[in-house]
Each structure stands twice: as structure tokens, then as C-alpha cells.
């Protein structure tokens, strides 16, 4: 596939891996956090860790929007969906996220009208088609998806739609990174910066990470070679004794971000004083809510939202996994009580979460596989289809 295969070439990867290995100081161990769940997914999906020397460890961060959504917010959304004449709309990834009493899938099976959409504009279409219903969009995501939610609210306002609102759960990435940097158990040597978020906010907001916390950051793309290249850039910085913010994903990410997108967010939304993150607890000014001026499109004002809090079970060690203190398999409930079918903690919820990625893609002994019968298949030549 054009513009994709070039970024997944095994020979290029091996060459890059060799250069990374050359930069490793013998006896030193390195830990880099990829903040974004999309990176976690790529790393596991392509088996990228097989290209890294054993002394380099990738720590999977908190950047998966559905993973960090607390159970109480899911319950609140289900409560809204249970109000008369409500059609709740949500992205596909939202459907399986567990609340205190089950997921959207369960609520839908019990009779709530919950529909999957691919864009908030689809929710708007449903609102136009059903003037007798109240259509709510379950808005989730970092700065990546916030502009499209904001645009949709602006359009609803322009059209004078009265039966559309958003249940705003948008979060912001910087406070989450700060929370990790401020953690006393921090053992990271640098960050792979989130690519999609950076298309909106740019690279400047990360400068404090290098300047004040002394950790280099490289904003990375989502193909496996992007990530390998970014690891190389981080290693290069450590080797040269530099500590900077670099942009590996410059083919997509402008250094200053997307001003228009930021303006649209700012027009419709403002920071909340605090917001709960699953696994990380309450983080101040880490999420957005709809501004007063657009109150009639704010589901939290239109409906009586119960504001439920659901405690994570004590056995859950997601916080430690998110900060890189524990490997997913070191958690007490990993793979037994907590599995992708019945995720208890945040990291097991979507395939972008660290535990789910490890469970789905990495649940085998690499050392045994390298030694065993799992070598290449005789006769299995790469295929070329027209």
C-alpha cells in the first residue's frame, strides 16, 4: 500500500535498530514513555519491541481516551440515555467501556437507544432526522477529537437545532504528562510525544518537559518506523547530552499547532477546575466543559446528571502501570480477574491500553519463541496481488 508500506519496511527497521544499538551505553538501561495509546497499539501490532535492544524499555502511558474515562462518567451517560426520548450517540470504542453497572452495549441490550456514529456530525444528522427525540453525543478524546465536537456544537447553534447536546468528556494531555512527571516513582529517560494531539496543540506546550524536567521529547508518527526513528532521536539526544523537544512527525505536525482548531475549541469549551481520570485520580484543569454561552447544547445542563463516582477495586494497579512502575503482567489481577472481556482497570479497556495491548498481542514468551519452532514457514513467499 502506497504511503504505508514505506513506513513498515523490515530492512529499514533492522538498519535503524542497529544504529540504536550502537548508541546504547553498556550496562545502562533506558525507559521511554510513549504517551499516546495509538503508539502503544502500533508497537504491539507490529512487534516493534523485537527490534529494540533489551536495555531499552518502552513504557505505555495514559494517552488512551476511553481508558482514562472513569466508570462514573459511563454511568452518568447511561443515566442520560435512560431519560425519555433520548438517543445517545457514541464512537465505536466507547461501546465496551465498563461503568459501575455495565457498558453502553449492556445498556443498549436493556433497551436504551444508543447508536454508534463515526463522527459527531453523524449525531447531528440523527438530530435533524428525529426532531421529536433528544440526541446526545458522548464526546470523548484529547485535543485530537475536541475540535470536531466544538465544530458540531457551532453548527448546531447556527442551524438553531434544539434537540442536540454533547456530554463533554474531553481531556487535555499536558496535565496528564505533568501528573506523571510529578510522580515520585518516575524512572523515565524521555518521552515519545503524541502525534495526533500535536497536530492540534503543536510542539511548544512540551517545552517545559525538556526545560524544567530535563527529559527529552520527540513527537512521533504512528507507523512503526516513525516510532523506531523517534527512539533513535531520543537515544541520539542522550548520547549527545542534549535535552530538547524534537518533531519526528513534521509531515503532519506543525510546530505551532493548528490555530484555527484551537480557536474553535476555545470558542465552545473551557477548562474544568478538575476532572477524574481512571487510574490517575483527580487532576486539576485537565478536562473541558461546554461554555455558558452554549449551555443549551451541554448535556450536563440539559439533563439532571447524577454525578456518580465509582471506586476502582483495590486490587487494581493501573496507576502504577500507567506510570511505568509496574509491567502489565506484574499487576495482581492481570489476566485472571481482569481481561479484555471483563476489564476491571483502565489499561485493559481498549486495545490502546497497555494491559490490553500486552494481553492481546504480547502474551507469550519471546525468549522461548526465538528458540522454538516458530521460525519462518518454508514456501510462504510474500504475495503480490494486482
Amino acid at each position, binding site marked *: 500500500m502506497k504511503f504505508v508500506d514505506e513506513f513498515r519496511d523490515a530492512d529499514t527497521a533492522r538498519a535503524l535498530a542497529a544504529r540504536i544499538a550502537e548508541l546504547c551505553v553498556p550496562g545502562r538501561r533506558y525507559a521511554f514513555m510513549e504517551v499516546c495509546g495509538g503508539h502503544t497499539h502500533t508497537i504491539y501490532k507490529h512487534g516493534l519491541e523485537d*527490534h529494540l535492544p533489551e536495555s531499552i524499555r518502552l513504557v505505555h502511558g495514559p494517552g488512551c481516551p476511553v481508558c482514562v474515562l472513569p466508570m462514573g462518567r459511563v454511568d452518568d451517560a447511561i443515566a442520560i440515555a435512560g431519560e425519555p426520548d433520548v438517543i445517545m450517540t457514541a464512537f465505536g470504542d466507547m461501546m465496551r467501556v465498563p*461503568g459501575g453497572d455495565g457498558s453502553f452495549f449492556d445498556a443498549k441490550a436493556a433497551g436504551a437507544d444508543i447508536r454508534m456514529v463515526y463522527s459527531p456530525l453523524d449525531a447531528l444528522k440523527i438530530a435533524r432526522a428525529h426532531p421529536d427525540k433528544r440526541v446526545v453525543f458522548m464526546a*470523548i478524546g484529547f485535543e485530537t477529537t475536541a475540535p470536531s465536537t466544538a465544530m458540531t456544537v457551532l453548527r448546531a447553534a447556527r442551524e438553531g437545532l434544539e434537540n442536540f447536546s454533547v456530554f463533554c468528556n474531553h481531556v487535555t494531555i*499536558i496535565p496528564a504528562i505533568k501528573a506523571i512527571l510529578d510522580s515520585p516513582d518516575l524512572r523515565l529517560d524521555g518521552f515519545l510525544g503524541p502525534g495526533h494531539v500535536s497536530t492540534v496543540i503543536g510542539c511548544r506546550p512540551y517545552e517545559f518537559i525538556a526545560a524544567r524536567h530535563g527529559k527529552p521529547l520527540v513527537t512521533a508518527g504512528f507507523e512503526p518506523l516513525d516510532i523506531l526513528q523517534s527512539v533513535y532521536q531520543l537515544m541520539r539526544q542522550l548520547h549527545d547530552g542534549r535535552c530538547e523537544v524534537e518533531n519526528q512527525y513534521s509531515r503532519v505536525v506543525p510546530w505551532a499547532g493548528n490555530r484555527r482548531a*484551537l480557536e474553535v475549541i476555545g470558542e465552545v469549551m473551557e477548562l474544568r477546575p478538575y476532572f477524574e481520570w481512571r487510574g490517575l*485520580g483527580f*487532576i486539576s484543569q485537565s478536562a473541558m466543559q461546554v461554555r455558558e454561552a452554549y449551555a443549551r447544547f451541554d448535556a450536563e445542563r440539559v439533563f439532571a446528571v447524577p454525578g456518580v463516582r465509582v471506586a*476502582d477495586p483495590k486490587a487494581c494497579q493501573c496507576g502504577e502501570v500507567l506510570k511505568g512502575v509496574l509491567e502489565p503482567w506484574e499487576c495482581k489481577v492481570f489476566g485472571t480477574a*481482569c481481561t479484555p472481556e471483563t476489564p476491571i482497570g483502565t489499561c485493559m479497556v481498549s486495545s490502546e491500553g497497555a494491559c490490553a495491548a500486552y494481553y492481546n498481542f504480547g502474551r507469550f514468551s519471546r525468549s522461548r519463541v526465538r528458540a522454538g519452532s516458530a521460525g519462518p514457514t518454508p514456501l510462504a513467499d510474500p504475495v503480490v*496481488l494486482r
Partner: protein
Amino acid sequence: MSARDGITNGMTDEIGNGTERRAGWAEEAVATHAGAEHLRSEEQVLERIERARRRRPRVREQRVTLAHGAGGKATQTLIEAVFVEAFRNPVLEQLEDGASVQVGDARLAFTTDSFVVSPLFFPGGDIGDLAVNGTVNDLAVCGARPLHLSAGFILEEGFPIADLRRVAASMARAAAAAGVTIVTGDTKVVRRGQADGCFVTTAGIGVRERAVTLSAGAARPGDAVIVSGPIGDHGVTVMLARGELDIEADVVSDTAPMHELAAGVLDAAGDGARVLRDATRGGVATILNEIATASQGAIVVDEAAVPVREEVNGAAELLGIDPLYVACEGRLVAVVDPSRTEAVMTALRAHPLGEGAAVIGHVGDDPPGLVLLRTAFGGTRIVDLLVGDPLPRIC
């Protein structure tokens, strides 16, 4: 937009409306597994997980959800915990695509399948030929010559007769092409809103004329794993035909009867034929997992060797789904003794449906019961049963 303050944990009491609850299901799940020792090595944890996976599955949900119909882990759990539990017998417990039964001297294959595809008509086919080919293929991969089919229709009040005629005509054509006759049927009409236009259920019987016994448990280390052509065409076609995605691609369903193709494979493989499967719902990945679990072998797949059309790959990439999980309706997966690989490949490629056949991997011995993918990027990962629906990802 950056925040000035850091983390503020422990504000539980002052924040929110003061209502704090516990997630009953989660606490219960933790309690069920309580007492598990805190293991120190990754190997021990992996073993504990495999033990947990071998336990009899439990349905946690109070109601059926769409995930129960997606062909992945939830479907398997529902089937095992409800249906196998209720109907338990040695034939059913094999959980093959169809049942292999003996009546007097006659070695028969028997199967059934229901079709609820939306839209009813899509590029390359419709619910009619899908319903006939699906059952023909389930019989074919049991090693049987398909003979007779039944057809049951559940129709929604208001469904156009012209569309029903179109479906019936398409079924008749498909039956003629597959050399089967539709010999019995049933019709029910439900009130508007109680069905989605037209649902079709077919059942079929065939005769197993070859001595070979195929089963997922028969795969053994060294065997070759083959697919008969590019995968994922049907699933991607239908997803795009729904028109919700605003993506267009030049791709058509692969729906086709595979009785000749399967017979060709069996003739070429002789007693080296181990498993034949029809890669429908859940795609090739689900079939391979069933084979790995049943045989306790390791199925090792070479990603670069898996045939996927450019259009299918592109659409799957955009939607964030893996073609390995996307349904086919005219592709079989074969596991054969390595000494027969070339003969089987020759037989497949001699048939129009098998032109794109490829050896995609082999059976190894470790790790038992898992499907491993050697990625085109040069890494290794697991290909697990899918949990829930193969839903598009947002970012």
C-alpha cells in the same frame, strides 16, 4: 490551555455530588480470583493466564449484546456456556462448521446457518446467494458433497415482493451453480419493526464420500496452513455498502460455492488433509485460533504471505481493523501435511476460486494453543480471538 497545578489525589470526599459507589461486578471478579499468589516471573504469569483461559467460560452479561453475535470471544462464550451446556453430545462438542454424522452406512454432513446481512443487496452478491453458498461451504469443508438445502424466511410486514423475488431468484441460481436443490422451506411474517426486511435461514445435508476425517484438533507440528485466496473482501464490501463511512472502494463480495475447490484440496491432500474451514464471521484469525486451541499446536503466520487486496487493506487501515478478522464468504483455510503442500497448492490454483491461494504459515509446537504472527515489520505478536465487535477506532 496548559494547567498550572499538578495531580490532586485524595479529593474524593469533596468532589462530585458525594455519591460514591462500587462496581459490584468488578469486586466480584476480583473476589473470584482472590488468593492468587503474586507471581514474580513473566513465565509464571503467562501460565496462570493460560490456566484461567482453559476454565469453562461464564456469561457475565444479563442480556444478549451485539458482541455475542460478532464471532469473537463473546460468541464463543455464549455458545459454550448456553448451547453446548444444554445440548451436550459428542458431535456438537467438536464445534466444526457442520456436523459429521453416520446413519446406517451413510456418512453424512449436516449444517445450518442464518443470514441477517444488511444491506440485503451489495456489490458481488445478496442475502440469497450468501444463504445458499454459506451452507454449501459449511458442508464442503466437512469433506462432503452438498445435496439438499432447506430455506426458512422471516419477513417483515411491508417488505417489497419484488425484493423477495430477487432474493429467491438469486438463491435458485446459486443452488444450480452448487449442484444442490432447495427441497423444503418455511415462511413467517412478523409485524413491521420486528425484523429488518428479510432474514434467511438455510440448512443442508451432504454425503461424505471420502474416507478422510477432518477436524480442527488434527493439526500437528510441521503442517502447512493455506488460504485459498485474498481475504476480507466480503466483510469490507458489506461495511462500505452500508454507506455510513463515506468511503468508496472498488471491491466486491467473494461469495461463492467452494464444493469443487474443497474436493480438489481433499483429492490432492489424500490422507494428509487435516483441517478445512470456511473463513466467514470472525475471519481467518478466528479459524486459526480454533485450530490452535483444538490441536494445542502453535499456528505461526507470516504476515507478508497473507493475501489481502490493496482496496481491502486500505479500507481496513482507515477503519483501524485487521483484515485477518474480516469475514470472507468464499475462502477456505486448509491445514495439510507438509509433504502435500505443493500438490494442494497446484490443485487450488487450477480452480478459478483458488488462483490467489497462498501458504500463509505453519503449525509449530510452542507456545501451545496460540496463534503467532511474524509481522511484515520483522516482529512477532499474538493474533487472539477478537473481543467484542471489530469496531472502527477513533484515533
